[in-house]
């Protein structure tokens, strides 16, 4: 028996427990260089390059919410600098990514977020005052003042309480959506996370579980290029986050996160897909983080000035959408020019008033720190509570 001296072409298939695989006699170690295209309908200069049917009243409302969000962020950031808030995180540059995607969800879709998605809460109707109460830790904070600012939670608006550990919420969104599926509900789970969080093990576990257990969950990654001071190139080497989806057998799409209309349309379609098939989808929204990571950060310490300037020039989603709306002839787009400055000012006023009110509100009584550990009190907790009250510190 002599081995073949020629390399044979074959269309044979090898069978394996995990499936059937076509054979090749050609040996090569391959590197995948392909780059997934980013869906865009409005250029960075605000010019429409594609015709899509979209309810312009919704797009107008998205714009207004983005302006309000910008006003809220700037005001609260200033308040932190003034010492009135201990900490704050803004979403400058990512208003379209968050608001337009939230707009494409149903109100009863459950949102699991990271920390830069309060634009979704604003879309869903939270008041700036409610957010101020959380940031100031007052007795009117739903979370009872237990967490740092921006760790919002709103049960009435299906927005799960933010927690600081990254990517943990992806798994929660998966498990939650599995329960929705079993209950035969029509709503879905949606979770937001950054490209840095996507390096965590929970990201891997979540996508794998969502795929194998067939969960109706929408994963939305805000890739803004930075995890505090760590740039995307130090975070990953593959083609962003979207390329990982196929590794898990999950459908995906990459979107220009600064194009509100593209974000809305893509999220809408993704949501329909998830709802109709009961299967997960991963969206990667490319956005620009135009501010510091948080008020504890100074991005000029690691971001080259030219890069920051460039981002400012191309990355502002408000400018793009405003330009598009102004050019659009529809009824819904009337008065954009005059409107947004006034809208912005009103937002600032509302935000200032929200902080003023929250500042006047005291926190809950300190003894409340013993509540809600369990649904009941334990012997040890009771003992400690009594000791606390005996010591009666002011």
């Amino acid at each position, binding site marked *: 028996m002599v081995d073949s001296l020629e390399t044979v072409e074959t269309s044979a298939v090898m069978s394996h427990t995990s499936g059937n695989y076509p054979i090749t006699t050609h040996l090569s170690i391959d590197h995948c260089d392909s780059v997934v295209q980013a869906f865009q309908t409005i250029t960075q200069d605000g010019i429409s390059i594609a015709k899509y049917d979209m309810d312009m009243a919704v797009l107008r409302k998205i714009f207004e919410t983005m302006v309000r969000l910008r006003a809220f962020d700037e005001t609260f950031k200033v308040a932190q600098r003034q010492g009135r808030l201990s900490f704050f995180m803004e979403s400058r540059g990512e208003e379209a990514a968050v608001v337009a995607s939230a707009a494409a969800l149903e109100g009863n879709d459950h949102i699991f977020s990271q920390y830069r998605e309060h634009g979704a809460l604003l879309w869903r109707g939270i008041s700036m005052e409610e957010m101020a109460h959380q940031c100031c830790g007052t007795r009117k904070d739903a979370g009872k003042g237990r967490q740092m600012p921006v760790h919002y939670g709103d049960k009435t608006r299906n927005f799960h309480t933010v927690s600081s550990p990254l990517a943990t919420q992806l*798994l929660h969104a998966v498990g939650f959506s599995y329960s929705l599926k079993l209950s035969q509900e029509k709503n879905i789970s949606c979770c937001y996370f950054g490209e840095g969080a996507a390096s965590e093990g929970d990201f891997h576990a979540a996508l794998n579980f969502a795929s194998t257990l067939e969960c109706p969950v929408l994963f939305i990654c805000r890739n803004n290029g930075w995890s505090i001071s760590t740039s995307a190139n130090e975070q990953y080497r593959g083609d962003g986050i979207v390329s990982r989806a196929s590794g898990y057998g999950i459908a995906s799409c990459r979107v220009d996160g600064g194009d509100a209309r593209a974000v809305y349309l893509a999220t809408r379609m993704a949501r329909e897909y998830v709802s109709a098939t009961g299967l997960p989808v991963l969206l990667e929204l490319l956005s620009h983080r135009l501010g510091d990571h948080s008020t504890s950060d100074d991005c000029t310490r690691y971001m080259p000035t030219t890069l920051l300037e460039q981002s400012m020039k191309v990355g502002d989603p408000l400018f793009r959408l405003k330009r598009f709306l102004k050019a659009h002839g529809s009824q819904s787009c009337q008065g954009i020019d005059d409107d947004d400055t006034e809208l912005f000012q009103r937002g600032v006023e509302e935000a200032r008033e929200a902080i003023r009110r929250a500042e006047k509100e005291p926190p809950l009584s300190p003894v409340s720190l013993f509540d809600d550990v369990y649904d009941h009190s334990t*012997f*040890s907790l009771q003992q400690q509570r009594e000791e606390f009250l005996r010591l009666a510190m002011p």
Partner: protein
Amino acid sequence: MKGHGRMLRRKLNLCGAVRDALHSVMSRNEKSILFGQDVAFGGVFRCTEGLQKQFGGKRVFNTPLSEQGIVGFGVGAAAAGFTALAEIQFADYIYPALDQIINEAAKYRYRSGGHCNVGGLTIRAPWGAVGHGGMYHSQSPEAFLTHVPGIHVVIPSGPHDAKGLLISSIENQNPAVFFEPKIMYRLREEMVPYEHYSIPLGKANIVQAGTDVTILAWGQQVHTSLSASSLLKERLDISCEVIDVRSLIPLDLPCLVASVSKTGRLVVVHEAPKTSGFGAELVASISELCWSSLKAPPLRVTGYDTPFPRIHERHYLPHEERVAKTISEYLFQGEL
């Protein structure tokens, strides 16, 4: 079937009792799901045998191999109001899930201001020495979890208690970790009622009353302690009160304190390594509350501060002779 009044019982081992509890819970609660590695075919210890057939593949299913995934998924399902029964294949592998347990499950209610919770989450895992498990199939990691406010930690000492305590842990509206002494899966049989019953959490069990020393233990060490106490009674006429702690969190401190106030001597026995083991917590909490009743320093007879050795397991574990000798020499200056 043995009859005892209206409570019909039959002999079950620990594996059977756990399966019985799970079956009972899932029959009553449509919104309960059971998941983990290999649970579909019955599990590596057969604790979930027959459950997928009974309740279907949507409610009983395998997950990919990821402890953090299993627990995080469970947190999400429980957040939606489901009873999420998560299985970790061995307690030795619970560590990847600690972030989800400690930072998420345990804090879910507190950080939401009480508006949300994952009380429906129960995590089960085979636990403790089995005779040949070595470093990674024998661990008792309860101390990592008892340190976490917001979860319950429960460890039964036999099939009867296992069923009642597991049902309680599941029905309790707080996330719970339920450790199952794997050595008992086949080897320990007790009479277990057919009916659905729960043993309240936060209640220790005085397995044997005594007057001279209080021995606290949980899991298999309850039986080791009973054997040690027989030796002590026989040879030195020392009367031991043996208490099965069983509910580590929430702890039945009043019961334990009452016992030590009575006997004046405290010994804690556990398999886990000595330093920072749960024995340290018991010694501190109990001494604080009955210091003046103590006739001797509180002691711990435990696994040594080493990883769990395979070939020398029986030297590593607190076996009955070491427990008895420690008590006789340190507390009674007597030679066993």
